[in-house]
């Protein structure tokens, strides 16, 4: 299980905060695609599009591989799972419970002394 580092989470959420990049991830959730195919629906230059792919790659969300003359993109599930877990209600639950546990323990110490 990949532990969610703060920097890693920042990179994932920053990567997701753009509609072009989210569209790329949605396309890739159906399966791998060549870069040119991914770029096609978007109204921007290829270098501009490649910048978006680099942001996604740096966040660990996609992997690029060359197959002959074609560069294929594949979705990496693990960072998405980590980020989604962060949004889980259990994140809030345990964060709060462990705070309350801390207060409970302090109270117990006080009532002993």
């Amino acid at each position, binding site marked *: *299980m990949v*532990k969610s580092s703060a920097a890693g989470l920042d990179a994932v*959420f920053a990567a*997701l*905060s753009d509609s072009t990049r*989210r569209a790329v*991830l*949605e396309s890739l*959730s159906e399966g791998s695609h060549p870069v040119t195919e991914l770029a096609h629906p978007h109204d921007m230059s290829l270098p501009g599009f490649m910048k978006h792919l680099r942001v996604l790659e740096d966040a660990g969300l996609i992997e690029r591989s060359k197959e002959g003359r074609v560069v294929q993109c594949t979705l990496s*599930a693990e960072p*998405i*799972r*980590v*980020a*989604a*877990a*962060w*949004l*889980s*209600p*259990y*994140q809030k*639950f*345990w*964060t*709060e*419970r*462990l705070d*309350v*546990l*801390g*207060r*409970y*323990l*302090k109270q*117990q*110490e006080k009532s002993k002394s």
Partner: protein
Amino acid sequence: MTNPAPEDRPSLSFARTYDSSPEEVWRAWTDPEALKVWLKPEDAFSISVAEAEVRVGGRFRLLMISGEGKEHEISGVYREVIPNRKLVMTWTWKSAPGVESLLTVILRPLGAGTELELRHEGFVEIDDRITHEDGWKGSLTLLQRHLTSGK
């Protein structure tokens, strides 16, 4: 409704340090009277029953009432028990009986205090869009929904 496989489900880990000794922290996790005070979903909840048969195979049960008067129950079985060191238990909501998650609590002495590590694995979100076979695709949907709705 099919649930994602355990390896596709989210898992969380937390680390905290407390000034209390591992024995005190262990007591907070294993004494039913202590659990009633701190282990509830929200402060507005009250725990009416807490059972903790802290031994391998022993039963864990919390029966609680929400601020609106609704009853909720969590139960589980202890899998590993190493006093003042490690507690592993299953964690199941009565309202979602097919979903068993695993809770691991590890305590390490840190000076006079304690370093606590908690892992909660294998839980499934109570959201129909997440509970299908492609667990990670569901996670992507959840993320997109949260990000685009400005929550």
